[in-house]
């Protein structure tokens, strides 16, 4: 009745059948990870959006952080399956029968390996979901990272289970390790949350860890397979040591070996601090600026301009000096400044009043990942995908080309110090050159309230666009003041900077009038709802 000989195909089918029976025997427990991945996580991610009744556009933004927090526990899924698969095998009776009937070699290692592969496969649709729904980047790298971590945990589980004959202990070690490192392990080997993953980290940290685990796994599988031989040969020697007169020395040696091995592995594979979260960004930038012997206090206008130049690629941290120890630090600092700059822009232009700071909302996000948030809607229209940003980039480049160091100085020299009449004359010429039409109230209004209209005239330099915008704004202020019967200063002979200050309160009055709000609504530009820009915005 028994089949003999080498029937590889049939053996493999039988192994898979045994594996399938093991999975089937899990019952409802088998579906728990599915519940986690495809119901619980999406629900937890979507719930804040539903509660706040935001539009669907906000889903990816609000969900990303939440999802990242929960997905840190995904590597424990294979441990879940391993526990429920193998628990029966070490119960009395079960172990006996499996040992008695087992004729297929490597059955346990095959099963453990298959459970790992099964879980990795299970993550595929989840990864696709993330890709499609939340537009995650670097998904391949992260998937490989997760797969390797899951593999390491599987090997740890398998090793402990085989050596100590305990499923409970085998499960406890990776779970406790993972939970502890997830809570506070900034420098832990496998902690997922605080590092930006790149190919280099994967190659230098995770891949060697994978091969080390593979070697350990193969070794333990051999022990499992040759247990009887080992019991006959090695075990008596260990027993002698364990119970002999040198037992204290034996235990001390084993302890030193275990601790030493652990430290060695940790030192070999411990990650460099390669990522900083948004909440660390400000201090990181400060420390790098200090390194460059520069001091720009956070929150000031110069800091904002510095962030703008960095965002425009004109002052990246690494270009200034290559003595920064970690390129990752410079990358994080650049990313933070980029995010900081657009956060300022978002808070200014956001459709809702008093928009919450993106920095506050995303404090736990990695700096290098934060810019991707800006690419999503609705942020993109008001930040990275805005014409305003295109204009500011051009302006910064022109400024550098003209030998200026900072936007404030540039604006002051090139715009604010100009006398009204000179600007008026220049603008008349520019209007003709760029087919913007005549110098009429209609032109002033559109240029003041629909700035994109000017931004898109690429035949004009950014400096000329600034000139036109400044002129149109002041002309529109004067026009609206007369319409509303408000007192307006005489512009003649005064500089633009002077006029910006003198009309400051007038702008507030005009913007507060209902008729102005009606006028604002005529335009679709992302900034139209802001009305006439206050003087502080003119160089932002």
């Amino acid at each position, binding site marked *: *009745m*028994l*089949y*003999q000989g080498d029937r590889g195909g*049939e053996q493999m*089918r*039988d192994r898979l*059948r*045994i594996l399938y*029976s093991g999975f*089937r*025997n*899990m*019952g409802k427990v088998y579906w728990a990870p599915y519940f986690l991945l495809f119901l619980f996580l999406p629900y937890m991610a979507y719930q804040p959006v539903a509660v706040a009744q935001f539009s669907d556009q906000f889903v990816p933004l609000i969900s990303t952080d939440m999802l990242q927090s929960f997905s840190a526990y995904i590597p424990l899924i294979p441990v879940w399956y391993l526990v429920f698969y193998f628990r*029966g095998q070490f*119960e*009395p*009776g*079960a172990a*006996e*029968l*499996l*040992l*008695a*009937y*087992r*004729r*297929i070699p490597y059955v346990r290692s095959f099963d453990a390996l298959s459970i790992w592969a099964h879980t990795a496969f299970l993550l595929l649709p989840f990864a696709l979901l993330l890709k499609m729904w939340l537009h995650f980047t670097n998904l391949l790298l992260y998937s490989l990272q997760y797969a390797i971590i899951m593999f390491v945990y599987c090997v740890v589980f398998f090793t402990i289970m085989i050596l100590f004959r305990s499923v409970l202990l085998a499960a406890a070690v990776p779970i406790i390790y993972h939970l502890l490192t997830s809570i506070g392990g900034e420098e832990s080997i496998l902690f997922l949350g605080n590092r930006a993953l790149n190919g280099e980290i994967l190659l230098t940290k995770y891949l060697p860890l994978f091969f080390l685990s593979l070697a350990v796994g193969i070794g333990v599988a051999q022990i499992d397979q040759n247990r*009887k031989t080992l*019991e*006959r040969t090695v075990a008596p020697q260990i027993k002698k040591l364990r119970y002999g007169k040198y037992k204290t020395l034996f235990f001390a040696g084993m302890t030193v070996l275990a601790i030493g091995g652990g430290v060695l592995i940790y030192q070999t594979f411990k990650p460099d601090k390669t990522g900083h979260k948004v909440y660390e960004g400000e201090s990181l930038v400060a420390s790098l600026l200090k390194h460059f012997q520069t001091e720009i206090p956070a929150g000031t206008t110069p800091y904002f301009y510095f962030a703008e130049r960095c965002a425009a690629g004109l002052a990246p941290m690494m270009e200034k000096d290559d003595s920064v120890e970690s390129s990752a630090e410079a990358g994080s600092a650049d990313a933070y400044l980029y995010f900081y700059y657009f956060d300022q822009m978002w808070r200014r232009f956001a459709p809702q009043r008093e928009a919450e700071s993106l920095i506050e909302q995303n404090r736990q996000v990695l700096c290098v990942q934060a810019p991707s948030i800006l690419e999503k809607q609705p942020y993109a229209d008001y930040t990275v995908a805005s014409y305003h940003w295109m204009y500011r980039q051009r302006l910064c480049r022109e400024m550098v080309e003209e030998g200026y160091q900072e936007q404030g100085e540039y604006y002051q020299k090139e715009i604010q110090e100009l006398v009204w009449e000179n600007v008026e004359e220049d603008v008349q010429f520019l209007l003709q050159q760029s087919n913007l039409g005549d110098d009429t109230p209609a032109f002033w209004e559109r240029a003041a309230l629909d700035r994109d209209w000017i931004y898109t005239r690429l035949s004009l330099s950014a400096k000329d666009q600034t000139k036109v915008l400044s002129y149109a704004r002041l002309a529109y202020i004067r026009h609206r003041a007369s319409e509303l019967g408000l007192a307006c200063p005489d512009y003649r002979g005064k500089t633009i900077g002077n006029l910006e200050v003198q009309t400051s309160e007038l702008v507030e009055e005009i913007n507060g009038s209902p008729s102005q709000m009606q006028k604002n609504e005529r335009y679709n530009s992302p900034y139209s709802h802001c009305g006439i820009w206050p003087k502080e915005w003119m160089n932002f």
Partner: protein
Amino acid sequence: MIRVDHLEKRFGKKVAVQDITLTLERGVYGLLGPNGAGKTTLMRTILGLYKPDGGQVRWGEANARGSDFSFGYLPQQFMAFEELTVEETLAYFATLKKIPKSQRNEEVARCLKLVRLTGEAKKKMGALSGGMVRRIGIAQALLGNPSVVFFDEPTAGLDPEERMNFKMCIAEIKKQATVLISTHIVSDVEGICDHILILHNGRLAATGTRKEIEEIARGKVWVVPAEAKRESTEGHWHLINVYEQDGQEWMRVLSGEQLAEGKLVQPNVEDGYFCCIRGIGGESR
């Protein structure tokens, strides 16, 4: 044929079985012994689940159980895959036992019929009673018509009808297999075993056919009126049984000495078993 030669198994300082020498050939062997006598340890050591600390087990000519031996085993605690159906469970064991796929379904059906559980094939194991699970355990041991079958406490949890059915199963396979049944219930093996092994304190106290075991007790089994015997302090005796006959209560006792009120009766296997494990003429009652 399985040869066991001076087998010894220890757990730490405790000697579980010692100096066991026996030969198992085709037929049914009953392994009797009180709890803790070493029956399960002996079975497990013969099966190779325990490494012997002394002596050896030879399966045929080999030093250990080889792949040419098809065997079945029912452990004391049979694992039930609660979420699998009866059919799936047996198919799982059929796979483990390397029964060719083409024969698996047929084998599963045959064994289910043997334990009279064909109607429960689609039920989940978790929904079965303890007795039914035990019968599935018996069925899995019989899968593949093994040439050696070891049963450890096979009738635990079975009702009288199922015990009888189990005996019928054994009667069917005894011609082509070596069957070893471990139990402490003498009546389970009395009618079906060709040979009986009595294990006591890890040692083989006696081996032999049913008749030979009965012979151990010949001339030592007495029936005495219960009332008279309770009041008597005469002689050393061991109580086997108390029963009522013709309105009077009787005691069946073992004694190596002549009992004044008693009459000698024909011994049975249980008497032989008690003779072995209590020792004739022992001090305790």
